[in-house]
């Protein structure tokens, strides 16, 4: 190989992000280890299972880019799911149920944004507080019981297909496209980048940085509300502890995907890859019937390894 070719290849390899390498390696390894893995039905399975996490991780990327965090997403998702279930049972209308879920999500998103932007409360704390509030409301509203009795039609949202493609995958694609356009093709997206790296520029441009911040958290809340539709459809019920911990998975997926907590640079495709890496890992380990304790350790190892690779890579 010529010198230039070698350098070009080397540069390409150096630029390929850790998460993409991890994804390819995992898919290759699991395909070899288990014949069931690389089948169409299983790959569809992974994509469908990853959708809810994707819907949380996409806005989480935006929030992390503003040097923030949203710990309440799982609890808000749960509360929205309960609101949706109760509304659908009471009115028989999925549309009204979705509206209720979106209201809950948006409400908490605005609350988070207000706490962070207007009251200057650190995002970790603000969303830890709203996590407690959302969690508490879920428990009190249901007294710990599942909400059942949802008309069967709702299940189609998770289990049905449209033009041969499972609906959750379609929702995932649309969500990714929407957030991608929002971040990379609108002025609002530019403001988000500015919030992370260069707040002064925003102020000079006369844009209210507080408004942008609030809007970012609001988007997060709204998407959690939308994800509630998928979660409720999946279980045909709502349960006050169903969404616990999902926000940490979302944050891990964003971090594994390469978005930095400090520098305010975000990579949305990286988040998508990060979500897929988590989904592939869990699915592959399940197919191989790896003991649960090893699965737990494996997830930790994956998160640390992905960040190590990126950390080592970014050394001068």
């Amino acid at each position, binding site marked *: 190989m010529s010198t230039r070719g070698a350098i070009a290849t080397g540069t390409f390899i150096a630029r390929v992000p850790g998460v993409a390498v991890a994804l390819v390696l995992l898919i290759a390894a699991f395909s070899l280890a288990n014949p069931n893995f690389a089948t169409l039905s299983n790959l569809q399975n992974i994509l469908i299972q990853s959708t809810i996490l994707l819907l949380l991780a996409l806005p989480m990327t935006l929030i992390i880019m503003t040097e923030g*965090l949203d710990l309440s997403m799982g609890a808000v998702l749960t509360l929205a799911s309960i609101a949706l279930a109760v509304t659908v049972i009471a009115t028989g209308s999925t549309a009204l149920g979705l509206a209720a879920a979106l209201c809950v999500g948006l409400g908490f998103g605005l609350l988070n944004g207000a*706490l962070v932007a207007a*009251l*200057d*409360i*650190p995002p*970790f*704390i*603000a969303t*830890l*507080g*709203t*996590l*407690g*509030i959302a*969690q*508490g*409301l879920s*428990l*009190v509203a249901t*007294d*710990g019981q599942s909400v059942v009795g949802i008309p069967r039609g709702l299940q189609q949202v998770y289990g049905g297909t449209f033009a041969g493609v499972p609906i959750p995958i379609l929702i995932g694609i649309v969500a990714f496209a929407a957030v991608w356009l929002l971040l990379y093709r609108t002025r609002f997206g530019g403001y988000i980048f500015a919030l992370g790296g260069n707040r002064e520029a925003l102020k000079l441009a006369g844009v209210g940085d507080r408004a942008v911040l609030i809007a970012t958290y609001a988007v997060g809340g709204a998407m959690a509300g939308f994800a509630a539709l998928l979660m409720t459809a999946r279980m045909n019920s709502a349960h006050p502890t169903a969404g616990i911990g999902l926000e*940490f998975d979302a*944050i*891990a997926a964003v*971090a594994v995907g390469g978005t*930095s*907590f*400090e520098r305010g640079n975000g990579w949305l495709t990286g988040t998508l890859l990060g979500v897929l890496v988590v989904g592939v890992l869990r699915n592959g380990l399940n197919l191989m019937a790896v*003991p*649960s*304790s*090893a*699965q*737990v*350790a*494996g*997830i*930790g*190892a*994956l*998160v*640390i390894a992905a*960040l*190590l690779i990126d*950390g*080592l890579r*970014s050394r001068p």
Partner: protein
Amino acid sequence: MSAVTQAAPARRGLSRESVQFAWRVAAALAVCIALSLLSDAFLTTNNLLNVLRQTALLFLMASGLTLVILTAGLDLSVGANIGLSACLAAIIIKSTGSPWLGVATGVGCGAAVGLLNGVLVTALRVPAFVATYGMMWLILGATYFYMGGETVHGFPPSFRQFGSGYFLGVPIPIYMMLLFLMLGTLFAQRTVWGQQIYAIGANPVAARLSGIPVERRLVLVYVVSGAMAGLASLILLARVNSAEADIGEHFTLPAIAAVVIGGTSLFGGSGTIVGTLIGALILTLVVNGMNLLQINASWQPLVTGVIILFAVWFDIRARRSGN
């Protein structure tokens, strides 16, 4: 926050912090007064000792964590660390019959985990949030594997004293709480290393320029945080008389909450150990009060969440008007 305002070391902030501390003590007292009016059982010696003993456990878990947060870091693996340390200590005590060997194992294990965290964060430059999150899973997985779904129970009375023993009518964990309150405050406020930790949190760049060995201090705070988690796990073990893999999982967020309610800022550079104690006390009082008043336990997360928000908002306001 610009470098200039953050560079002001903790010294000038001390008086403001004293005011914040005074407010917190007042808040805790207010809760106590309210509870004693609402419930006959609150103001009894036994109940107060119970509250203090439960506070002691939470405080010990959160005390080392305070140092970590002072450097603008975070440790999400506290709960998992407690589980691993408790389980290892439990097994050592059972197999060797020696409580002291168990204590050494527990604290040692906690410190080792802390060391790993510190190395990940400093040498390998993984952000603290994600590094400790990954470690949490790793440790938990290892503990699950090791314990195989079983519990280890039944420890010698000499060991049980740690958690359920009394001395001069006061539960032993309370003495430990006071001891580490003193040690922690002395370390943070009166030693060079302590001041350096504040400086690192306030402005890491300036700290490095002024010659502070930032990486070594960061590793130190994670090791201390881990060791304290290990110690707390022993008291938990002694109280509950059995170890299972996820015995610590419920404590991670309350420990962080205690530090934050106590007035330590997540941005680093300001906060006190005694503040963490008050934070732990307030959290424990809320749960105790709800138990005594027989309020549905489902309300607890909500009340705790509101208190967290209120405490921090209060601090922010004070900080802003102070400037």
